Structure formats: C-alpha cells, structure tokens
C-alpha cells in the first residue's frame, strides 16, 4: 500500500470509529429535529480539514512542521466531526468524553498555529538558500535537474528586466575547460557531479544580489546587478580562481576543474547579448 492510501485509510478509519462511538452511546434524534444547516457546515468543515490534512501529508517530506500541520488539521477534522455527529445523536450533556471530543477543535487550531510558526522559520531558511538562485521573483518553474539552478529562459527574462533599468549590471558566462573529456573518460554521472561542484563553489562566492543560472551544458551564467563591466570582470576572475583552487575527485584520481569566462554589460536585447557573448566564449 502506498503512503497516500495509508494516510487516507487512517483518516477514514478515525471518522468511522467516531461515528460508531456515537451510534453506540446515544439515541438517534428524529429526522424532523435535525438542523441541516449545522450538520452541513460542521460536516463540511470536517471533510475539508481531512482534505487539507491529506494535501499537507502528500506534498511535504515528513518532519516536525509536517507533523504539527497535519496533526492540527486532523484534530480540527475530528472536533468538527464530533460536533456534526452531536446534531444527529442525543448524548447525555454531562458525558465528559463528548465535551473532550468537541474540545479537539480549538486544540487542533493551537497545534496548527504552532506548526505555522515553525513553517515560517523553515521558509525563511529556504528563502535564504534559494536567494542567489531565483533573485526577486519566484515562479513555479522547475529548476535544472542536476544543479537546481534556474535555466536560460529565466536568465533571458531577468535580462529583459535589467534592460529597462538604469543601474549598471554585468553578465558573465563561464565554461568548464575540457568538460567533454570528463564526460568521455569518467561517464556522464561524473560529469554531472562536476557540474554540481562548480555550481556550489560559485554560489558560495557570490553576493546576495547575484543570480547564478545554468545556461546549458557546462556553461553557467552569472548576472551581477550594480556592477560595471570592469567590476564584473574582476569578480569573474575571482570566481575562476576559487573554482580553480577547488579539489574535485572523480573515480580514483583528482580532476582539475578550471573555468574560462566572458563578460559583458547586461543592457541590450537579451538574445543578441547572449549570442554575442557565446561567440566570444567560442573564441576564448
């Protein structure tokens, strides 16, 4: 049984056992006295809370935040469900267990709030991590599978933004020297690892405002807002040094990873700018 089905069975089991509990403990109120609006709203709340709980469980990896959010929603579901069943079954008002079950609703809200609090912390950490990769703007576009960086289409969109802007901005492209040899000699899995290593090294050495993209293949692009072309050139040389000083191991030996770069002022039509810079890279 997969995870989704297991969660679904668990929630359904809880709802059914609550219903059975009420059937066993109380007498059915005649149909004529049922308040249909109450039943619909409380039952609906329970079902929606169940749905939210499922969404949280299916879309997040397990962990403290996930458990708090899902647990809170499950409590809200059960509390509302108890409320709803209360409308249909006559339970002795002095029965403590019934009151306790209805108190699950506010308790669930507290748990959910705690979950939200930790979620906010988590999100702040993630945003910090993603900052140099997405810059100012989040879209639900998948990142490059290997390096988790944005792709060329995203870079072009950012260049478009920059071209309307007056502040200086530099664009640098990096190629890995002899990358094709790593692929031939060690295989594509090692090539992918080299790409990841270079991406990490570049990320560590960028300013918070910079944007790193994987342009295509072994070519990376860095957009450096606020830097003029000579400043960008200096920053690029530093990045090349940092990557050159890195030790990368493939198979049993050490592989030297060095970069070459090309730099341009980032104002102008993105396609022409990138085509020119690529031509410059071919000539290096």
């Amino acid at each position, binding site marked *: 049984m997969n995870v989704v089905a297991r969660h679904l069975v668990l929630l359904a089991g809880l709802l059914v056992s609550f219903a059975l509990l009420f059937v066993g403990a109380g007498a059915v109120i005649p149909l004529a006295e049922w308040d249909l609006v109450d039943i619909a709203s409380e039952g609906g709340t329970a079902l929606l809370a169940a749905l939210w709980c499922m969404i949280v469980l299916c879309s997040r990896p397990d962990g403290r935040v996930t458990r708090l959010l899902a647990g809170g929603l499950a409590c809200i579901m059960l509390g509302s469900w108890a409320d709803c069943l209360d409308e249909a079954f006559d339970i002795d008002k002095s029965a403590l267990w019934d009151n306790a079950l209805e108190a699950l609703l506010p308790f669930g809200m507290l748990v959910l709030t705690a979950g939200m609090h930790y979620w906010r912390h988590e999100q702040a950490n993630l945003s910090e991590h993603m900052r140099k990769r997405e810059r100012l703007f989040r879209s639900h576009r998948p990142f490059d599978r290997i390096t988790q960086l944005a792709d060329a289409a995203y870079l072009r969109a950012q260049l478009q933004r920059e071209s309307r802007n007056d502040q200086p901005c530099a664009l640098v492209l990096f190629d890995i020297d002899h990358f094709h040899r790593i692929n031939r000699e060690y295989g594509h899995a090692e090539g992918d690892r080299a790409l990841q290593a270079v991406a990490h090294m570049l990320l560590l050495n960028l300013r918070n405002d910079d944007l790193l993209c994987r342009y295509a293949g072994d070519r990376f692009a860095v957009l450096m807002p606020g830097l003029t072309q000579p400043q960008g050139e200096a920053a690029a040389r530093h990045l090349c040094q940092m990557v050159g000083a890195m030790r990368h191991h493939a198979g049993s030996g050490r592989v030297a990873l060095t970069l070459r770069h090309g730099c341009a002022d980032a104002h102008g039509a993105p396609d022409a700018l990138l*085509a020119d810079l690529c031509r410059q890279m071919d000539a290096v």
Partner: protein
Amino acid sequence: MIAWQAAGEASIPARLQPALALEYGRAHDLPDAALLRDTGLTGSLAADEMISVSQYLQLLANTLRGLDSPDTSFMLGQLMLPGHDGAASHALVQAPNLRVLLETLCRFHARLTPLLRPRFETWDGVALLYWVDACGAPGLRPALVEMHMTALVALCRWLGGERLPWRFCFNRGAPRHIEQHQVHLGADVRFGCQLDAMLVDADWLDRPWPRASEMAARLALQAAEAEPARAPGLPAALYDYLLAQVRESPTLERTAADFGVSPATFKRQLLRHHTHFQGELDQVRTHVALWLFQVRRADNEEVARYLGFHDAANFRRSFKRWTGLTPGPIRAAIDGELGWLTRLSGAAGA
C-alpha cells in the same frame, strides 16, 4: 538492384544505439514502462537481439517526451559516436584527420547513423556535411538533427583535441532552446535555411590529429570494409539513387523497378516512411539547384537545363513550390555576406 531496409524490419543490434538511449533514460529516473511504451520491447535486451528502426525511433521519442528537457537530444548525441559497432566504430576513432573521419562516417552511415544519412561535399575552400532523413521520422527530425550534429561535433573535438569552428544551418525556425545549440554545437547557428548542414573551412580537413597513424587508420578501414555491409533505410537509399539519376527525370515506375518492387509496393513502403516519391524527388532537385547556385554560380537558365526543365520560368515556378522562395533571394544570400543558403524571409540568424 538497390539494397535498402524497411523501417519495420529488425536491422539494428539492440545493444548498440538503442541500449544507449535506454540507459540514458534509466539513469535519469524514467521508469521502463514509460521508456518502452509502444516499442514492443521488454526491459532486458538480449545481447544479439535485433530491433527495427521503428522500435528505436519509438524508444527515442519516449525518452525525449519522458525527460521533457531541451538538452536530452544533445546529451544523447554526445554518447552516440564513435559507438560500439566493432570495425566501423574503430575506423572512426582511428581516422587521422577530419577528411578521413567524414568519409568514413558517410561510407558506413547505415551502421553508424542509421537514422540520418550524412553527405559530405567540399568546394572552394569550404567543407559541408548535411544530414538527410534515412528512416522516415519527420516528427522527430529536429531532435535527430540536434543529436547527430552534436555527436559529430563532440567526436571531432575529442579526436582533434580542440573545438572546430563549425557553422550550422538548420531547416527550421529558431527554437526556444537556442542556448543548447550555442553550447553544445557553437555560437554560429542559423535557422530558416534550406538544409540541415554543418560547414567548416576546408583547411581543417587535412590537418593531422594528435593520435593520427596512417597505418592504423588503413587497417581499421580494411577491417570495416571486410564486414558484411548493412543496407541503408529506404529514404536514404532513395535519396542516393535520385541524386545519381536527377538528370534523367526519374519516374516512380523506373525507380520501383530499380528497387526491385512493384510501383504499388514502392508507394506503400514510402507511405510507411511518411513520405512520397514526388516529395523526395523535389527535395533532391532543391539540393542540386542550391548546389549549382552555390558552386557553379549558375543562373536559372543553366539550372533549368541541368535538371531537364523546359525553360527557366518553369524551373523558377517549381523552385518556388519546393522552397517557398524564388531563386533570386537565395542567390543574393549566397553572394552576399550571409554566405550560405540563408533564407532571407523570416528570422535569419541567431
């Protein structure tokens, strides 16, 4: 009689090109169910199993669709050459220079590149390699061209130890993923041309490569020639035939007879390869006309005479029908600084 291979017949050893595509898909977490859908293959390819071109094409289409990433065709291309086809692959690796490499590739294309047939031409200091459909896969053509061009570029770079200054023409509009072309092929790419071709200065053809050994190269070629030849796909065989016969005004009946089948069977076979006789003939005549414009600086009158047209006006009309352009702008483009075959209407250049 002309040897050819129908796309439906088992002709490719499964452990060669198909195994590479399968392995690449698996390495990128595509499940076998998605990779092998509609191919009629099971997950474990037997060592001596032969599969058909159609099955291989389906496998490629599944891989491209499943991964849905613009670099898939380029990455598959990097894995493709020299390949593992015994003597033919060995002859490629042993090529002492670019000229021998390209000749070897064209000589053994049915083994090395069964999906696209490379053709190598050279004149006045320019070397041209263009790719002709060999399997009848119009839908996959852009991806196949990317794959085969990348394969050749990567092989030359590996054997020659440096990046050759190739220029590229594509018979398609500019794609969204032009960055892949720029990085895997080179910055000099042009779209909207009449051919899928790659050009390089002829100076590069005879430069010896670092590991070159004339002797090893000759032995490797002899070994490859000694192996039984594999027949090319029907579109490739037909292209070669029509190119040789283009001045004799080839007809469907004559061609079918030379291919050893009845005209009805021939038509049906072409249909199975998603093409038809007239289309193939028009393509060959377009290429020959372009060749004459480019190399002989021929005018409409000469080309019309060469191709057996009644007069220049007739040829001009036909040319317009084949390419969507009259010969004038094409000739102007060839004479102008743009150089080769660039189509002036629409998006020219990167």
